[in-house]
């Protein structure tokens, strides 16, 4: 057995695998802070791997595994006929998986940063991309995640098949670094430089994120939107419920709600004409179709032009976003009480970073002897 994979290559491989798994399980709102942090870490890992592909040891260099679909195709054919033979470094099919995963990981970092910059107005691109670009990037981010999972599955399947047919434990070799190979294929472990580089890059990614961490970050995300406020709106609406920001429904919905003010969900608002006029003007001037926030943009685009929902929970965007929320969380509170989970509900910002799922409030029972 001869050492083929140096330490930094192996550390990179497993760090990326762990980070990808982490990203997969933190994709929903309450864990988005961790999701974002792992994204920076993946960016750092990709940068490292690109550098190591040029300055690393022999088998880690891109020149030792050129991208060649023809060679990969011939290799798979030979492998299935049982005549492939062992490869010291990456085999031609494996190299395709490596390039695909590096490309996908890089694209995920980019689409993630665009979506974050547009929709949360955070990160290095804060506020730069348009909301339309952010929405597109977000969709791409979802599709690419599944593509990446697909490539990972093919890669794992290839490793298993290759290990069996080449009679070489490929998983083990990525752990120990050793494969069956001629003695002159051996590379130095080169712990120092490479590992130091990985640690440095990942630490700077963590520092980049850490500078913006915590609740303050969520508050900034919400404050960055600086949505308009109105004292009369606040006073009038908050008597019975959260003064839902007008950007949460399209103008035609507000028109309908004010026209029906004497039957407002079972209550007669009985607003004086002047008050009604002022409130309706404010609501329609700041409605969802003004796109003052990413959430407004999404709601406006989700509602069919012919419909004017009276409830925010009646908009397709609201339903889609709350589909996977634990129904028990809604039992603990009212769906009308957005603030139970969205700490920035009052402002209307609804930043994904300001979400904290409603606490369980168990009924305490007192046991008496």
């Amino acid at each position, binding site marked *: 057995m001869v050492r083929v994979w140096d330490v930094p290559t192996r550390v990179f491989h497993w760090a990326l695998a762990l980070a990808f798994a982490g990203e997969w399980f933190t994709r929903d709102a309450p864990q988005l802070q961790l999701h974002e942090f792992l994204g920076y870490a993946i960016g750092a890992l990709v940068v490292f791997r690109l550098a190591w592909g040029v300055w690393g040891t022999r088998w880690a260099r891109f020149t030792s595994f050129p991208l060649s679909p023809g060679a990969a195709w011939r290799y798979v054919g030979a492998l299935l006929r049982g005549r492939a033979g062992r490869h010291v470094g990456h085999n031609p099919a494996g190299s395709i998986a490596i390039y695909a995963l590096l490309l996908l990981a890089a694209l995920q970092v980019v689409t993630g940063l665009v979506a974050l910059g547009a929709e949360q107005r955070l990160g290095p691109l804060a506020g730069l991309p348009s909301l339309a670009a952010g929405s597109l990037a977000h969709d791409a981010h979802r599709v690419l995640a599944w593509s990446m999972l697909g490539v990972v599955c093919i890669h794992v399947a290839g490793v298993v098949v290759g290990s069996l047919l080449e009679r070489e434990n490929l998983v083990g070799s990525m752990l120990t670094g050793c494969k069956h190979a001629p003695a002159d294929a051996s590379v130095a472990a080169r712990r120092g430089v490479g590992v130091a580089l990985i640690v440095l890059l990942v630490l700077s990614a963590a520092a980049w994120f850490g500078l913006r961490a915590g609740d303050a970050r969520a508050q900034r995300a919400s404050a960055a939107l600086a949505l308009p406020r109105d004292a009369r709106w606040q006073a009038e609406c908050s008597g*019975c*419920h959260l003064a839902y920001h007008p950007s949460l429904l399209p103008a035609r919905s507000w028109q309908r709600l004010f026209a029906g003010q004497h039957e407002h969900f079972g209550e*007669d*608002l*009985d607003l004086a004409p002047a008050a009604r006029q002022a409130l309706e003007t404010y609501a329609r001037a700041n409605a969802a179709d003004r796109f003052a926030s990413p959430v407004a943009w999404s709601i406006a685009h989700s509602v069919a032009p012919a419909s004017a929902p009276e409830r925010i929970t009646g908009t397709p965007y609201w339903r889609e976003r709350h589909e996977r929320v634990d129904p028990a969380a809604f039992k603990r*509170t*009212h769906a009308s*009480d957005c603030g139970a989970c969205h700490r920035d509900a009052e402002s209307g910002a609804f930043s994904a970073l300001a979400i904290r799922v409603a606490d369980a409030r168990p009924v305490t029972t007192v046991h008496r002897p």
Partner: protein
Amino acid sequence: MNRLALLALLVPLLALAAPVDDLLQQYRAQGAKDFSVAAGEKFWEAPHPDPAGGEPRKCALCHTTDLRVTGKHAVTGKAIKPLSPAVNPERLSDAAKIEKWLERNCKWTLGRSCTPQEKGDVLVMIRSK
């Protein structure tokens, strides 16, 4: 001279204490008789059938029987600050606000506006808590 100064002092004081007394005066002018805390308490708990078939409606449904504690909106679940002026000094301090909420909440609870007598009884009852 002295009497004038005393009057000048009293006017703003009266204006401060006025909202409920002013309203009670109006209600009397509209035909209400003497107001009583007991009648207000009875009114507070009297149930009215819910047209939607839910729990019978009454003032206490949202505001609870104890006016010194926080209530809860029957539809939205929003917390309602205590009505007792002793606990929550903001209460009964603004005549327009009192009238607005009496009108809106009577309509929801009873399906009609309250009579001047009912409103007066409730106001003296709330003031006594």
